[in-house]
């Protein structure tokens, strides 16, 4: 596309994880001497694409390096030998090792007598080059460094060169922990690296960074590339517009739903986000959405509200108890060795006792009741929970929360990996429970789910940055608030 022979070319690349199609036919080429900005909402497929380039896993489709097809033979080791380096979003340094030892872990050539000294000199020289005045010593233990310095070490390490060259460096949210000065140092270095003939793929939620550093911007949505143009042809708002597509049809659809935010309904939850901002307020019978990009403090907020129902948490008041529906079913949700009935009744056991013992008649009655009400597809509620499909397991978790006496139900992105049919059933159930006076706080990264909410708060950087009523809610507005930058 840009040069005669691109360094890397992907053609019609597809990748699925179970039922989730992360990449649905992506074409991308990347040449020496250019910086590609990669943007997109959560789950657009950016990280999958990056792992693919790094050789973490393979995918269907063609992938060529230097014009040579490497499909199927691309591994972490061969990617490294070809000079592809990655800075992953979650830090991939070993916290128990020193800065120099972490450099050694990446470079096989650093061995033999005096390796420690050479590794230290290598990483310190690169740190001096990228982040002048960094204040990091080669013998510092990484775990003792503050997060910004750890990220600096990780970035500098990706650019260090021993036996294999650094030809393509992929930076996934490299500035998320850096301050403005360090971020500008990095972007300046990226430009110098590109000018010297290197290639960079920059993934960032900070659109200003992308527009400033990239030559070409690639916009992804739902596992596809939806726009690809020189950075100079994009503006902030045209980028945001490219990320969302269905902004238009919504207006009519929305008119039908009247906002039910009654001024007279009693307040159930009032909470202040960790970093301040607007207060979150939820009334009786309301469905409140917590939106924004992933990991901007929504889950933390739900957990703090959950805690506040049991003990005093400053800045948060909750009336009438709360129950949580976990998003990560496998780690936070189900008791994998228990039956469906046991999983449903666990939070309500206090009401299902006879003396000090569990009354199995009462627990079975409750489980049967919820099985019927919520439509859990199983011949017997005493079957193990893992005999259910993912969607039905999630239904059991909903039954657990709804079956409790809690007036407020907190939902931490509960629909992850649930099929569309089950989703519709659960949406209907949430509606019905809300009519009956329950309050729902719903963290979701899916735009479609926000449409079921009466009110939406957008989170960025641990704070609420937008407070949208049902009538004001559009995908564009949510995206704008999610990506907004400090001027």
């Amino acid at each position, binding site marked *: 596309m840009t040069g005669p022979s691109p360094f890397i070319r992907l053609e019609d690349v597809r990748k699925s994880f179970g039922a989730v199609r992360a990449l649905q036919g992506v074409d991308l080429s990347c040449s020496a001497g250019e910086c590609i900005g990669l943007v997109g909402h959560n789950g657009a497929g950016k990280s999958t694409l990056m792992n693919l380039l790094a050789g973490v896993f393979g995918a269907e489709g063609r992938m060529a390096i230097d014009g040579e097809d490497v499909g199927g033979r691309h591994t972490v080791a061969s990617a490294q030998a070809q000079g592809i380096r990655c800075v992953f979003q979650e830090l991939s340094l070993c916290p*128990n090792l020193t800065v120099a030892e972490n450099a*050694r872990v990446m470079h096989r050539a650093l061995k033999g007598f005096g390796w420690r000294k050479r590794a230290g000199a290598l990483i310190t020289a690169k740190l001096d080059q990228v982040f002048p005045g960094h204040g990091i010593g080669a013998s510092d233990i990484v775990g003792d460094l503050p997060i910004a310095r750890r990220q600096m070490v990780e970035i500098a390490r990706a650019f260090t060169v021993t036996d294999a060259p650094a030809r393509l460096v992929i930076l996934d949210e490299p500035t998320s922990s850096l301050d403005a000065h360090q971020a500008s140092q990095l972007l300046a270095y990226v430009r110098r690296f590109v000018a010297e003939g290197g290639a960079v793929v920059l993934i960032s939620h900070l659109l200003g960074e992308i527009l400033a550093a990239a030559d070409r911007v690639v916009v992804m949505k739902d596992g596809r590339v939806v726009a690809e143009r020189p950075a100079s042809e994009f503006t902030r708002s045209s980028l945001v517009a490219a990320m969302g597509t269905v902004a238009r049809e919504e207006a009519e659809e929305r008119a039908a739903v009247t906002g039910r935010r009654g001024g007279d309904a009693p307040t159930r939850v009032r909470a202040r986000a960790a970093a301040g901002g607007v207060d979150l307020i939820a009334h009786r019978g309301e469905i409140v959405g917590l939106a924004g990009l992933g990991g901007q403090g929504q889950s933390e907020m739900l957990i703090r509200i959950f805690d506040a129902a049991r003990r005093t948490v400053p800045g948060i008041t909750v009336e009438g108890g709360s129950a949580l529906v976990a998003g990560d079913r496998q780690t936070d949700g189900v008791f994998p060795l228990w039956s469906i009935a046991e999983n449903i009744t666990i939070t309500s056991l206090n009401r299902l006792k006879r003396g000090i013992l569990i009354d199995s008649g009462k627990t079975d009655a409750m489980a049967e009741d919820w099985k019927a009400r919520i439509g859990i597809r199983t011949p017997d509620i005493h079957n193990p929970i893992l005999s259910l499909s993912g969607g039905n397991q999630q239904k059991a978790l909903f039954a657990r929360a709804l079956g409790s006496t809690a007036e407020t139900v907190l939902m931490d992105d509960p629909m992850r990996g649930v099929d569309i049919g089950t989703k519709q059933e659960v949406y209907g159930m949430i509606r019905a429970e809300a009519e009956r006076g329950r309050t729902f706080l719903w963290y979701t990264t899916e735009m479609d789910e926000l449409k079921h909410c009466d009110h939406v708060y957008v989170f960025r950087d641990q704070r609420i940055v937008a407070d949208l009523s049902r009538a004001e809610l559009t995908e564009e507005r949510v995206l704008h608030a999610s990506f907004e930058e400090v001027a």
Partner: protein
Amino acid sequence: MRLTARQLRTLLPALSLVVLLAAIFYLQPRAMSYVGFNLMLNLAIPIALATVAQMCVITVNDLDLSIGTYVGFVACVGATLLSGGMGALPVVKELQASGALPATLPWIMQTPLVGVVALVFGIAVYAALGALIHWRNLPSIVVTLGMSFVWLGLSVLILPVPGGQAPAFLRSLMTLKPAYIPFPIIAAIVIAILANLLLMHTSYGAVLRGAGGNPKAIERAGWSLLKVKMTMFALAGFFGMLAGLSLVGLTTSGDANIALRYTLLSIAGVILGGGEFVGGRISPVGAVIGAVTLTLAGSFLSFMRISPDWQIGAQGAILIIVLAARTLIDRAERRR
């Protein structure tokens, strides 16, 4: 100020050893002599080696519950196969007595090489365990707990009743009397330096420890975690073998149950020496000091005239005191 807390933490194992030594010398000034040190620290050598073995496994976030019976197995092999070949096995001797085997055995039944093969087999089994734990993603506690019964069974097969005889070279090595400095002290220093070089100073050692700190990062950097696990378990098998051989050199005869206590002692030694169960944070020098401290704790309690029945409990109390001190330091560090 933050640095001093870290330094204090690193110095804690050495400090506890000094405090313990001071207390012993106060109670029994005559212990401060060549003979005294020899007597008190003799058994520290096998314990220190077993502790280093345990540390190798803890580095990669696993735990070895079979190290005690493994050391016992090595001791039994040392007291029989390694000194007199298969001819030294009680089973073979019985067969000879009943006339099923001739009085003079062929060369293959007498060569101590069989013992060497058995020891290499032990290390190979350890490496295979590491591979198994990594491949099948099994909890190491379960695998090694099972293995502890296997080692014990093998030991009983080799030596149904305590007996056998340690090879002469082991006995003479363990009873060396160098001038001025008692042998156990030299041995402990050599073990500490070797283990430190191996894990803290070689370039592959950094990768091995990194696998405990962030296995994903090591994998993404293109290293084989399988190889790392196998290396660490094989190292554990190697140091465990040295522990068993030094133990049989001291006791001169073998016994399947000789080292059952080593499993817990070695874990305690690693932790006492500043290591942590997860995260690859270890200190080879600290581990050796920890093992010596635990050994001396026994002597100290004897000097206090505390009955042996209470000694294990008292050792536990010492462990709790040192770990409490460490937690206090950590907390002070975090508050800053």
